[in-house]
């Protein structure tokens, strides 16, 4: 399983990356995309939406399921990755390049895991 060491993670299987401009990029982990199977669509938030840590900010659809994407932070959507609308399979093929949204003006963060902690969490979830 691919869990890049430089990223932070949540127990709901999002990854989080600090950007140079102070915002955070959010995406779904390799573990999450494997669980979901072929992703066929993403409902993206709109730029300017406010999001709350621990609450749904987007959802992804496979053929027979839909799953929420939870925001790890409280802040404002600074950018969304519109490419995913046309090519949702990027989330399957390159989950750590396929950022969903960038969140700025972050005022709160939920409990985040390091790569090592996340790996432990996933292997315990599998049992």
């Amino acid at each position, binding site marked *: 399983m691919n869990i890049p060491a430089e990223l932070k993670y949540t127990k709901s299987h999002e990854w989080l990356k600090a950007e140079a401009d102070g915002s955070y990029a959010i995406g779904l982990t390799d573990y999450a995309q494997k669980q979901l199977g072929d992703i*066929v*669509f993403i*409902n993206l938030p709109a730029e300017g939406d406010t999001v709350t840590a621990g609450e749904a900010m987007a959802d992804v*659809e*496979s*053929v*027979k*399921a*839909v799953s929420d994407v939870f925001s790890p932070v409280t802040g404002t959507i600074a950018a969304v990755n519109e490419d995913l609308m046309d090519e949702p399979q990027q989330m399957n093929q390159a989950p750590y390049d396929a950022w969903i949204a960038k969140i700025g003006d972050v005022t709160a963060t939920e409990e985040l895991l390091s790569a090592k902690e996340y790996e432990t969490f996933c292997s315990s979830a599998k049992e």
Partner: protein
Amino acid sequence: MASYVPSTKAERQTMLESLGLVSTAELYHDVPPAARVETLDLPEGKSELEVVDAITALAGKNQVFHSVFRGAGAYKHYIPAVVKAITSREEFVTAYTPYQAEISQGVLQSIFEYQTQICELTGMDVSNASVYDGATAAAEAVFMCQDRRRTGVLAAATANPQVLDVMRTYCESRGVPFTLLPAKDYAVDPDALAEQLKSGPACLFLQNPNYYGVLEDVQPAVDAAHAAGAKVILSVNPISLGLLKTPGEYGADIAVGEGQPLGLPMSFGGPYLGFMACKQPLMRKLPGRIVGQTTDSRGNRCFVLTLQAREQHIRREKASSNICSNEALCAMTASVYLAAMGPGGLRQAAESSASHAHYLAGQLSELGFGLKTSKPFFHEFLTDCPVNPELLCRKLEAKGILPGLPLESGILWCCTELNRKPQIDGLTAAIEEVLQDEAAV
């Protein structure tokens, strides 16, 4: 008593014994006594012949009018014989929803064809596989337009009142503000529209031709709504689209309507067919089933139910609608009707309906039934009535004619291609008789 259970008494006993049981009563061991019922107070079962007699007797208590000048939401059109013949095939009648695509290509392809025809008719990009009727289609369309930023619907009071009633019911339960846009001279009041759009509703709902048959001034209304940031739902009569400008050409976001005129009998109100089509950006908000094209494992083109993650069986309480079925057989009926009529036939139905209606309006005005408005109309129109409308209608009914609908102290008339000149002349002659009788009294 008719029974559709094939197994004989002896076979049932053998089956019970294989389960180690003596009687069928034992199958209900989990049912507590208080929940049981010993004998239902129902009539004894009947043979097929007796049932045919009983139901035929009920049908015989109804008066079938061959001369029908009433519309107001349900329309008597000519239905080519081939339509009923095709849609009576048992595979189409008895199949369930096409979840197993490998053995359901017939139903799936027919829905794909229906969706294409509805898009062509309305000038929209995407159609669903249909919903219950025109009224629920309108209500579901209102829900499609609601989002976190904007809520509410501004609904033209000139729309069909039953459609507005259903919309009101739906809106009330989901907390969607419902505002009625008042009419002026039997059409939308543009000043009221401009004023009410200021409150920022999510959408404008407009019917064209409207309930009174009037052709609304659609374009300025669409433009005003869009300028105010509201989406536009246009409800249309599908026959009229053989001739009239489409919702797509007007720039509407969603087109809905009652599909009954497309080859479905009036059947005392149902089953009917609600069609719904929208522009591409709203596709994922469209409720109900949608069929899409794909390829199978052998590389052939085929069709499947798609975009299912929108629907209740996956999204459950987060689904945009609870709708599970569509009106598939009615949608197929509409599709066969449209294919049989073709573009020329549909245009002819529209033109004949409008021509007959205008001829009737002329004849009636000579008898003192003035048009309530001088606005243009399609195949329905509202007139004054020189005598009590209810009384006139009763007398015409006694002569075997179903006249227009008594409404607003006048009468709402309708013509289709079936109301040909001799029939119209018959109507006006009958009216003259009634008027003379009344004058003599």
